């Protein structure tokens, strides 16, 4: 659905995005992670047809964002990190304005607006002036605005920024619903655990370069070069440690109560042998699981604070 080829964007001497290459299949929720100034918003602006790349191409639904911006705009719903609203309109009038801007016939708009307000839990505020809404409500109204023309792709730049915990949860629930509806979503956020929960694919960008791109359950392994195995036993964790810690591929092992945490750099076959060894030696293994990894840790490891 989205393809980025050698995308480069310069602002004078500052290189915001450097030869970015990416492919996001249809129906994927893609989490874009990176410190401030890494190039996330720039990439999203290019995809939203708001910025001309210095070099390279970007395609949405097969349409080049520079050559065929009108067709791309039909496919996307874009929510910038900071956006304003027209204060002198009610929520319904606000959505009606954007429905008109997307050439939606007048007779179809009332039902559509009602559905959208229901989706974002703002039915009770339909006739309230937009400036009387809280930040979280405005953010949800903004999301409803993105959906007014039923786009296949949603580009959401920090949709949860500045929201209180309740508003974040509400926003997350709406995004999960949109995921169920089969939308392709690009979302950037600093709330990394939230991304891990929602996204299928994670991309980490720093100083304009994509440094990791992998499914969310593999991103830790790709970045850190090892996977984390959590082995829970009913008893004899120290003995399990003694059995495994010296083996090839085990980078680090530590005991935490009845749990053994292993950083393992070997392959899948080697991993099965670890389990087989424990069972063969009669150790009471309760569970043997690969952890998705702590995304915060991944983020800190990869970015090394360069952007801050």
């Amino acid at each position: 659905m989205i393809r980025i080829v050698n995308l480069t964007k310069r602002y004078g001497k500052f290189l915001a995005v450097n030869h970015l290459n990416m492919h996001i299949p249809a129906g994927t929720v893609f989490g874009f992670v990176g410190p401030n100034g890494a190039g996330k918003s720039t990439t999203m602006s290019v995809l939203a047809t708001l910025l001309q790349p210095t070099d390279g191409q970007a395609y949405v639904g097969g349409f080049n964002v520079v050559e065929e911006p009108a067709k791309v705009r039909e496919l996307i719903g874009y929510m910038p990190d900071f956006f304003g609203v027209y204060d002198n309109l009610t929520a319904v009038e606000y959505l009606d304005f954007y429905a008109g801007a997307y050439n939606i016939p007048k007779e179809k708009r009332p039902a559509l607006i009602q559905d959208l307000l229901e989706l974002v839990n703002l039915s009770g505020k339909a006739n309230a002036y937009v400036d009387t809404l809280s930040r979280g409500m405005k953010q949800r109204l903004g999301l409803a605005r993105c959906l007014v023309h039923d786009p296949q792709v949603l580009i959401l730049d920090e949709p949860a920024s500045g929201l209180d915990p309740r508003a974040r949860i509400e926003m997350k629930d709406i995004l999960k619903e949109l995921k169920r509806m089969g939308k392709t979503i690009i979302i950037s956020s600093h709330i990394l655990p939230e991304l891990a929960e929602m996204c299928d694919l994670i991309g980490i960008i720093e100083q304009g370069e994509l440094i990791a791109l992998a499914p969310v359950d593999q991103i830790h392994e790709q970045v850190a070069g090892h996977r984390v195995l959590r082995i829970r036993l009913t008893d004899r964790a120290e003995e399990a440690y003694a059995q495994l810690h010296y083996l090839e591929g085990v980078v680090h092992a530590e005991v935490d109560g009845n749990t053994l945490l292993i950083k393992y750099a070997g392959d899948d076959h080697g991993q099965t042998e670890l389990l087989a060894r424990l069972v063969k030696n009669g150790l009471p293994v309760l569970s043997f699981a690969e952890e998705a990894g702590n995304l915060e840790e991944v983020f800190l490891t990869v970015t090394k604070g360069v952007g801050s």
Partner: protein
Amino acid sequence: MQKLTNLLMNPILVKEFRGRMRSWKSILILVLYLLIIAGMTLAFIYMQGGNSRYMNPGRSREIFMVLCVLQLGLIGLVTPGLTAGVVSGERERQTLNILLTTQLSPTKIILSKLTSALAFIGLLVTTTLPLYALILLYGGVGPGQMLAVFGYYLIAVLLFGSIGIFCSSWFKRTGVSTVIAYGITVFILGGTGAAALMLQEWLRYVNRMVTTPVEFTEFFYVAGLNPVAQMLSMFSPDILLPVMNTAHVGAEGFPLPAWLYYLLVYVPLIALLLFLSVRLLSPVKRPLFTRKARKIQETQEVSSK
């Protein structure tokens, strides 16, 4: 009919009208506008009448001219204020980027904003019609002249409006845009007049020894840029063509019809300003010249291979 409905149902126009009519500022502008124009016109009528208790119909032409100049001055005062924030205001409110990702093209956005300002000025001018009716009642001014004056208003609104919109597209801040737009408007309304008067004095000085009749055609080209002089030249053509050593000349002495010169200068300028505004608003600018465009296309083809 469908096209007309689409045009009238343009979402930006609907939003602008809705917002404008909900704002107390619009009512305030309307009241102040009427107070100023009616107050000054009625005061002039009173002064013209002196102490007599009747209106002198022979003077209605002068009153009409005063009303026209006042109206033009007020249009110059209001139009930049209405238009100098239309794009920069959207940018400051952080709504511009969202607007640009919709199906509304930059051309439609700019033209809708201009139409909205034009409609409000139209409302202001329409509310002053009773004053014109008062003058027409006593004669001295033909309906043709009246229509021509409204034609001049239309060009003036389009000119000042496109200046405001251009400044708004160019400068990021509404404050800066408003100051520059008013500066240019004041130059067109007053600066061109002052330049014409200086030129006239210089021409008189250069030709001081000449005893044959002289028409200052150079003056026409400078004074003809001034909307006030242009409009008043309908009533007294010598405003645009001063002479020496000869009697008064009529409009037939102009190198070309004054209104034609006015249109030839300002209509392309309005079109240029609107074109530049659209271009400044377009997030992704396509090259204007085909050679450059072809070169870029070739580069893209090579890189895609």
